[in-house]
């Protein structure tokens, strides 16, 4: 998963309001494992609506473990996060990580989606979280996040 520092790019997901929380994709031209954005862009219209509805629910401060969750009780995975949906009897996952990148608003949480996984059981493969953790710690990723959020100013809540 290691890559050169210039190969990462973070893109805020368009079409969602940024208030107390924000959502973004991590993009890499060289690493195929960083696949969340590519998969999202190819979702069918209805599936995209379904996933965006789940994004909205999280952005609005909702709780629904069937749709998304973190692992706050596992210290090593405490910043990992997942959005979930089911399609043709397969469980789909967008794995990512949470961070607080705005020094002007320390409470603001950004979820950076990294990878996509498809499986037949609900069980989480720890290697997915391990990879997300590894990516999160990379300097180039932190730099990409800083660049992406430098232009945003969170809007007041609804």
């Amino acid at each position, binding site marked *: 998963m290691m890559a050169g520092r210039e190969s990462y790019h973070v893109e805020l997901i368009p*079409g969602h309001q940024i208030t107390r929380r924000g959502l973004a994709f991590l993009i890499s031209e060289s690493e195929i494992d960083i696949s969340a954005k590519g998969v999202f862009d190819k979702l069918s219209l209805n599936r995209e609506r379904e996933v965006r509805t789940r994004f909205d629910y999280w952005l609005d401060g909702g709780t629904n473990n069937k749709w998304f969750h973190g692992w706050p009780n596992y210290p090593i995975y405490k910043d990992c996060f997942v959005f979930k949906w089911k399609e043709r009897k397969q469980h789909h996952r967008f794995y990512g990580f949470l961070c607080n990148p705005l020094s002007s608003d320390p409470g603001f949480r950004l979820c950076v989606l990294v990878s996509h996984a498809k499986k037949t059981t609900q069980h989480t493969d720890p290697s997915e979280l391990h990879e997300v953790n590894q990516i999160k710690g990379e300097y180039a990723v932190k730099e990409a996040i800083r660049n992406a959020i430098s232009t945003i100013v969170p*809007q007041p809540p609804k």
Partner: protein
Amino acid sequence: MPHWTARSVDDFLYRIAADFITQLESKMKSEPLSKAELAQKLGVSKGRVSQIINNPGNLTLKMMIKCARCLGMKIAVVAYDDGDRENERGPINSEIFRVCWENSGQPKDFWALEKPRWVASTKQLFRFPGTARLGQPAGLTSQPAVSPKDMKTVTTLLAVERNFPISRDETLGASDSSGNWSAGLEAAWFRSGGLVVP
């Protein structure tokens, strides 16, 4: 940047129908009522129920009413103006409206909106002895009354009517709990997080 539901009416419809399905599933879980049982009540197959739940974009208002009624629930179609003309923020989740209605003591008619009641915000305690004295801050009579319009800005409203017996005192001022509401009692009320009547 507009919200994704600004792209088309179908996008907007999907989102609000999905919010409705979330409420429906939550009720099914609390009842509890299985998909098969709901299917039986609706007179459709279990597959059709799965289809409704998994693809809310095709839901009609008629089907929403049918589903809600099967669970003993009702539906309101609420139009609201949140000042977001260009739909940059997306729709407000229907669950938020439900919770607000419940927190307001579940008013059933327009008279219920005018009943004397104690309403608290996170910052101030107001009493509502009807429209004539609407918004007079309790125990703080020297402060200016808050107009009904300004009350819209008060967030996190807690209707004390449902939770606290004092609110049912329609002869405001006649009882110890409301008439002799003192600064000390108010402080205790706030210390308790507004959840216990001193």
